[in-house]
């Protein structure tokens, strides 16, 4: 089993392995290898197309956490120039699970903030698996307030299983750190565009997710609780995660349909990791468009629209 592929992708993995093998035998064979390879490649493509045309919510939540999935810094590197990372909350520590800094998006100055996961074991631990502590949220807040002072639009990338549930995090006020970000972002006097690039894990995601536009990559997820967590609480069994994923409606299309997000950013066939440059291009196009539109609004209008958006969330009846 190829660990760089998910379980439901294994048929693709097998085909890809076959193609690699053929390439390796290469020239010394008699049969027409090139033809065989292109036949298998076509087959792999159509297989991928058919698999990905009907992913269920649980499969998509696995895609959002795919071991090969690009992370915030992979996008920052491709989307922006002159990125200067800024560190620390000025009070306690620098939290590596949130990165941020100033940069240019096609010459336009911006403030970039995002959750960062690690690729190998060592980096995973260093990044705390993308689970921020209060100092991470306070660093994000510091950068957002700086962005407001220097009239830089804020661009955030969301990718976290959730805020870190640890003793120190509680001691240092995890709740307060998240709550304060929500309050400040609601009224920050500069445009904010948020993009969910992987996992949008609950309050830990929302703490950098209040904005004028909220977009999601096609195979990212955004949820009040992880499917596993929900299943173990409501179904009393973590094995019902697939049912929970479906019920929670955590996929980009479903959330767009519900009016909770603005745009779904298309991923390359087989997912963002299959072609990171193209994925970055799609994100950049959306970001530039959104930022252009928001830049034309005057500040009061921007704030009114953001506020109305927040107030519109919810379903209830009036008797």
């Amino acid at each position, binding site marked *: 089993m190829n660990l760089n592929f998910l379980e439901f992708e294994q048929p693709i993995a097998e085909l890809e392995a076959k193609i690699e093998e053929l390439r390796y035998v290469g020239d010394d064979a008699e049969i027409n290898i090139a033809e065989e390879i292109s036949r298998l490649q076509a087959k792999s493509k159509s297989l991928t197309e058919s698999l990905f045309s009907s992913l269920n919510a649980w499969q998509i939540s696995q895609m959002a956490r795919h071991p090969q999935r690009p992370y915030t810094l992979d996008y920052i590197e491709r989307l922006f120039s002159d990125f200067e990372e800024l560190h620390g909350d000025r009070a306690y520590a620098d939290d590596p699970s949130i990165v941020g800094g100033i940069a240019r998006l096609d010459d336009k100055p911006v403030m970039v903030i995002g959750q960062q996961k690690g690729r190998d074991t060592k980096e995973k631990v260093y990044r705390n698996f993308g689970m921020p502590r209060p100092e991470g949220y306070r660093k994000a807040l510091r950068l957002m307030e700086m962005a407001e002072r220097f009239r830089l639009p804020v661009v955030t990338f969301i990718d976290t299983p959730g805020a870190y*549930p640890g003793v120190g995090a509680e001691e240092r006020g995890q709740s307060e750190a998240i*709550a304060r970000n929500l309050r400040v972002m*609601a009224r920050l006097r500069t445009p904010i565009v948020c993009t969910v690039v992987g996992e949008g894990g609950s*309050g830990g995601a929302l703490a950098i997710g209040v904005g004028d536009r909220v977009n999601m990559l096609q195979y990212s997820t955004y949820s009040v609780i992880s499917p596993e967590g929900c299943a173990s609480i409501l179904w009393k069994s973590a094995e019902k995660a697939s049912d929970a994923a479906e*019920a929670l409606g955590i996929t980009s299309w479903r959330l767009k349909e519900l009016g909770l997000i603005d745009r779904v950013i298309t991923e390359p066939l087989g997912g963002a990791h299959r072609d990171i440059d193209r994925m970055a291009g799609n994100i950049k196009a959306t970001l530039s468009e959104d930022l252009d539109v928001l830049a034309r609004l005057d500040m009061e209008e921007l704030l009114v629209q953001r506020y109305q958006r927040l107030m519109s*969330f919810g379903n209830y009846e*009036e008797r």
Partner: protein
Amino acid sequence: MSWLQKFLPQISTEGSSKKAVPEGLWAKCPGCNGVLYRAELERNLDVCPKCGHHMRIGARRRLEAFLDAEPRQEIGDDLVPVDHLKFRDSKKYKDRISAAQKATGEDDALIAIMGQVKGVPLVATAFEFRFMGGSMGSVVGERFVRAANASIEHGIPLICFSASGGARMQEALFSLMQMAKTSAVLAILREKGIPFISVMTDPTMGGVSASLAMLGDVNIGEPNALIGFAGPRVIEQTVRETLPEGFQRSEFLLQKGAIDMIVPRGQMRDRIASLLSIMTRQPAPKSA
């Protein structure tokens, strides 16, 4: 275990001693195991007269005890929950709503009333923990916003007594967005210079603690209330060690700087009326 129980284990087991307290007339304090006369307990606002343990108290009773008898005007009581997502786990959300409504006599987990405390006008809200764990869904969020808007409209302070496990999972991402919604209205309150006092009671966790509850100009904890972001069990599973005694209790939060003070239930009216009269530059409240 007493010497008698050691010799005669068959006549006294834990199960039977629990049932020995009759429903209605007597109650047992979970803090000191004392047997209490229920009428006396109720007069004491469900605080054990023997050990001071604060038991959970319903939202309506809480506001009844907190507010002056007159005037009172309920806010957002025309709002009722709907199952927009047709959410179904082991039970249907619709059925869970009905069951909670029947059990509590409330439409949802937050009540808001405009009134006075010792003559100080204010808007008070309270979470009903028995309604699906006081979870915050769309009705809770909208009622809180309407309560805050009434505060803004009349220029009077806002109080919230929270008791909640967090966001309501059955409303999925809509419930998460209530965190952003309630925090946004508090940003306006702050801009207008209207005081918000947050009283965190047992328990105030998750999405409620990580939004409106922590945003008070003054944050108050009831004695020994569990207050935090992640639940103790989740933390224990993550860090794989037993948590220190008193972790995430009001006294712990006071020490860590997350809350301003711990106020026993019996003093809540006096202390809040006094705080608010100073914060709004008014004369000291009348002593009644």
